[in-house]
């Protein structure tokens, strides 16, 4: 129906890469992108249980007169109807409220820091808070526009991982791209993971959507990550079985995001997946 993806536009070459990536994702997942061109560096996002203040880095406000033009151009080139978000409510005169009932949100690895700081291993604190509170998955784009051609889901058996898996099924169904599942076997056996799937009645979907279920056997996670195709959309949960859900994401999640440069679609704890 009315599935939307929120994208905050940065009128710079780096921002262009991010927008192109968002547009590609929107076309594959059949959602319509809604662009917010910020007029001030701060805005508030009121989630169900948290209010996150986003302080954008100044490059987001660069050349505001050409921002609309550039964004429209990129959207029209891709054949997508340009839709822009105009905040209707303001907490203070310089603090617009951006609503949060989107289906996806796309952002680069950090939105409050300089572009120079964005590298592997770094996910800015604001982005982390959004992932934690949002009811939608967050697409963290790779620094350069790359069209992904398959989907890779990391499944570890936790509740979050199940949501990631269902989201993977969904995107596979809508976009038609091949889906692979990756599970790191540490102390458990392959059968225990398969049992988890049967316990949740997901075997049908597994056989229908999944191309290959890779059980990674190398000792450390980092060594295994080479098996993930370079042009795959990686879908994973933010937290695993970890006890403390504070500023740090799950252990594996942190390792993954600091090793691979693919586009990451991260599923937070408040997201409920529907296949």
């Amino acid at each position, binding site marked *: 129906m009315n599935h939307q993806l929120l994208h905050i536009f940065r009128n710079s070459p780096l921002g262009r890469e991010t927008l192109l990536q968002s547009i590609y994702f929107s076309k594959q997942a059949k959602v319509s992108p809604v662009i917010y061109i910020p007029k001030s560096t701060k805005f508030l996002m009121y989630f*169900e249980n948290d209010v996150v203040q986003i302080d954008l880095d100044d490059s987001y406000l660069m050349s505001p007169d050409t921002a609309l033009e550039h964004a429209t151009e990129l959207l029209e080139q891709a054949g997508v109807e340009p839709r822009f978000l105009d905040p209707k409510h303001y907490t203070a005169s310089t603090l617009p409220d951006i609503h949060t009932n989107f289906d996806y949100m796309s952002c680069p690895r950090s939105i409050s820091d300089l572009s120079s700081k964005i590298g592997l291993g770094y996910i800015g604190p604001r982005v982390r808070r959004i992932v934690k509170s949002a009811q939608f998955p967050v697409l963290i784009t790779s620094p350069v526009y790359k069209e992904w051609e398959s989907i890779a889901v990391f499944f570890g058996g936790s*509740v979050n991982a199940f*949501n990631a898996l269902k989201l993977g099924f969904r995107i596979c169904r809508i976009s038609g791209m091949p889906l692979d599942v990756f599970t790191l076997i540490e102390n458990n056996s392959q059968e225990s993971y398969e049992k988890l799937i049967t316990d949740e009645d997901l075997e049908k979907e597994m056989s229908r959507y999944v191309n290959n279920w890779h059980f990674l056997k190398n000792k450390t996670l980092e060594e295994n990550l080479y098996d993930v195709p370079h042009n795959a959309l990686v879908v994973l949960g933010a937290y695993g079985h970890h006890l403390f859900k504070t500023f740090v994401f799950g252990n594996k999640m942190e390792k993954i995001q600091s090793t691979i440069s693919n586009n990451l679609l991260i599923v937070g*704890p408040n997201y*409920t997946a529907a296949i």
Partner: protein
Amino acid sequence: MKMTIHEVAQCLNLHVSTIERWIRQGRIPIQKTGNGYLVNESALKKWAKMYRLPFSMPEKVKSREYEEKPENLLSAMNRGGVLHDLKGDDMETALKSAVEHMPVLSKTSKKELYRLLLEREHLTSTGIGKGVAIPHPRDPLSDTLKSPIISTCFLEKPIDFGAVDDRPVFVMFILLSQSIKIHLHLLSRFSFCVRDNSFVEFLKTSPDDASFFAKIADFEKQLDRADT
């Protein structure tokens, strides 16, 4: 009993997003735990009563019109049978002999039927033109009829029925239904057949049962296709 929010939404006849919003705002006694919801049915019922909100399981929609397959002409006509060369010089005698020959009904109901048919004729003629008449009682019979009956009666010679186009009537279709809804339904289907002039010409030939029913089946197929 464990309920899902969709069931709760159905019971309250509200949209699921309204229920989700009320849970977030704390207006409905359902708690959110991480991914799921804790629903306590008895607490909900009490809450609904306090706020005068209707809370009931939606009944499985069992409207009669959908449960029973809508009656079609063929089965009704089969039940009513076809009479050829019915004797009668005028409307009353024709009707009387038709009623006599009708299957299924008892003697008393036949008397009753004849009276009702006459009553209806006196209101307005059931001759709908082109020589066709559809006598029927205005209200369903006092007998409980289980299925509708259409009795086809080809008259020996055309008689004056006071029809709308003043043409003499050569065939009567007596319609008996157990409810007005079914009566209207059959009437509407029948009128579709009669609109076709070639069908009326076909009737004038006083056809045998098999080809007559075949023709009716054809019309029914057309109607069914149009309905879907």
